[in-house]
């Protein structure tokens, strides 16, 4: 589904990603862990097509297409979803209206008619229940006046609504208490299937107790320096990132 080869990227002239190689197949969950400043969020932003990140080398192939040639909205329509680390507040636009517009743009891209109001409302209720989000919240302006936990839950709700093929979770666990973390993880687990894949970016192992990954990679100083299964995450939790620094001789 996703193949990243030798990806290098700069932000404001500073090289942050220094050659990333990663392959994500359908049905897999990959966790990318790393200390602050290692390039985790940059990787997420580059994949989602955020402006201000310059790819200097390498390629990203998504379902056979060169992802880096495609605009952000086009990527979303092709099934990529980024759950933001810091969700944006949009005063004046309700979540319901936002999702309706979004779903219909994606459907248009796929040659489908706009979704019928009844079907939309059914999906809205189902997906809200999935992340234990009060349906009333979806009538409010997007993220305005939401607590940190509510904003993150709203991200997973949006992901559920759009049913992406590849979900990228950028530090979705940061700022969540344990109950909210369980709700968010539970939502993701229910969305997992053999047809989609997830890249879960996190600083801590805690989230991975609930979203059990197939692969764990350690991002350090712009490179994936170690890969393994879920036990790698446990080891990191136990001994910390210094162990990585020592083991790669940094």
């Amino acid at each position, binding site marked *: 589904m996703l193949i990243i080869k030798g990806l290098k990227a700069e932000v404001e002239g500073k090289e942050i990603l220094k050659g990333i190689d990663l392959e994500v197949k359908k049905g897999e969950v990959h966790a990318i862990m790393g200390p602050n400043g290692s390039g985790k969020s940059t990787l997420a932003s580059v994949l989602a097509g955020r402006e201000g990140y310059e790819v200097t080398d390498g390629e990203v192939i998504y379902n056979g297409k060169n992802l880096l040639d495609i605009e952000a*909205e086009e990527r*979303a329509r092709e099934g990529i979803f980024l759950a*933001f680390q810091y969700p*944006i507040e*949009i005063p004046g*636009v309700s979540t319901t209206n936002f999702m309706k517009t*979004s779903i219909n743009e*994606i459907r248009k891209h796929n040659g489908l008619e706009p979704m019928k109001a009844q079907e939309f409302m059914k999906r809205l209720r189902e997906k809200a229940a999935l992340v234990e989000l009060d349906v009333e919240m979806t009538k409010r302006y997007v993220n305005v006046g939401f607590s940190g936990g509510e904003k993150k839950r709203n991200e997973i709700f949006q992901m559920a609504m759009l049913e992406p093929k590849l979900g990228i979770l950028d530090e979705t666990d940061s700022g969540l208490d344990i109950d909210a973390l369980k709700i968010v993880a539970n939502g993701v687990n229910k969305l997992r299937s053999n047809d989609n894949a997830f890249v879960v970016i996190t600083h801590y192992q805690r989230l991975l107790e609930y979203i059990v990954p197939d692969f764990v990679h350690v991002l350090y100083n712009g490179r994936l320096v170690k890969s393994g299964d879920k036990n790698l995450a446990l080891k990191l939790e136990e001994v910390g990132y210094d162990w990585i620094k020592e083991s790669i001789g940094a």
Partner: protein
Amino acid sequence: MGLKELLNTSKKHGSKSLESKRKDALATLEQTGFPTKSHEEWRFTNVSTIVNKDFRLDKEPRIKKLEIEKLDEYKFDANIVVVYNGTYAKELSKIHEKNDKIFIGSFADAIASGHEKVFEGHFGKYANDKADGFTALNTSMINSGLLLYVPKNAVIEKPVVIINFIEESDKDIFANHRNLIVVETGGKADVSEVFYANSKHSSFSNTVTEIFLGENAELHHNKIQNEGAEAYHIGTTQVEQRNHSRFYSMVVSWGGSLLRNNLNSVINGEGIDCYFRGFYLVKGKQLIDNHTLADHAKPNSHSNEFYKGLLDEEGTGIFNGKIMVRQDAQKTNAYQTNTNILLSNDATINSKPQLEIFADDVKCSHGATTGQINPDEVFYLRSRGISESEAKKLLLSAYVHEIIDEVANEELKELLIKRLEKKLG
């Protein structure tokens, strides 16, 4: 022929006091003349084009079919008052009001139907002919005029919508609009003034609306400016508010070549609420100038102002909002916000909030911001599959909705929202 020469061509009225007021206004105008850019309040707005243009009155307006079709948009469940090229068009107006104590009609009809006392009691008492040449011009050129009278504890059941048309003509039309709205103690009304000018020639609307709100009276007042690209508009809305009255003003300006709105309320009592809300959209080389004054003369009242602007292409916006708190006006709460979004590098906004406070125990605040569409918001929407242009449209629409959603007349609100979508499309 300039504006001053026009004066000799206007009609005479029956009312003696009106005739003497017109004469006085004419003398005032001769003394003061029209403002120039050296006047502080007119620094950014050059009216010399208006003053020097050859505007003519349409003395015998003939209404064409085309205009009547345009009225179709206003098939509101409302009292519709049509003013054509500056003259009240009774035959096109639809007044549904059943309460015969309520009056909606021309000054002459008001005087003829026994409302002379109301007229004499309020006309010319609030708008100041000395303020600028245009008010004096308006008084001296009064044409049909419109009186809207809501007596004590009466409620106009349906909103009133005054549609001012200026239409295709072979000359540059001058339309002089003068309205007097009197809502007595405990009365309630919802009044909109809508402006159209579709002439290929220039047109000039000179508008003065005087409003009196008695104790505990309530008025929603909307001014909607839809004029075409060749239209000039200078308007003053002057309000006098008494104890516990509530005034909700909405000014939406998205047409015209040069528009200037003066909105002043004298908050002359306690427990008063005064809301000024506005939205302006400038494009091309348009100039839209809003000057407002919340004049707190007595203690324990509240005023709240919120104006938003969108400035595109080479358009210019001016916002000058003044809060005056006089010495007696202790415990005043007065707030003001003006925000602007610049959509082009060549657009200009001059935003000037002014506080003049002579009382010591008050709560006042003001703020003005100018910025661009937030790129983080655009990216957030794009990351969900929404195109960049659609994302911007959605964000701008949301920005404007915060103001327009406050329009109480639901049918008018719907029409405005429809028009907004077109403007942003």
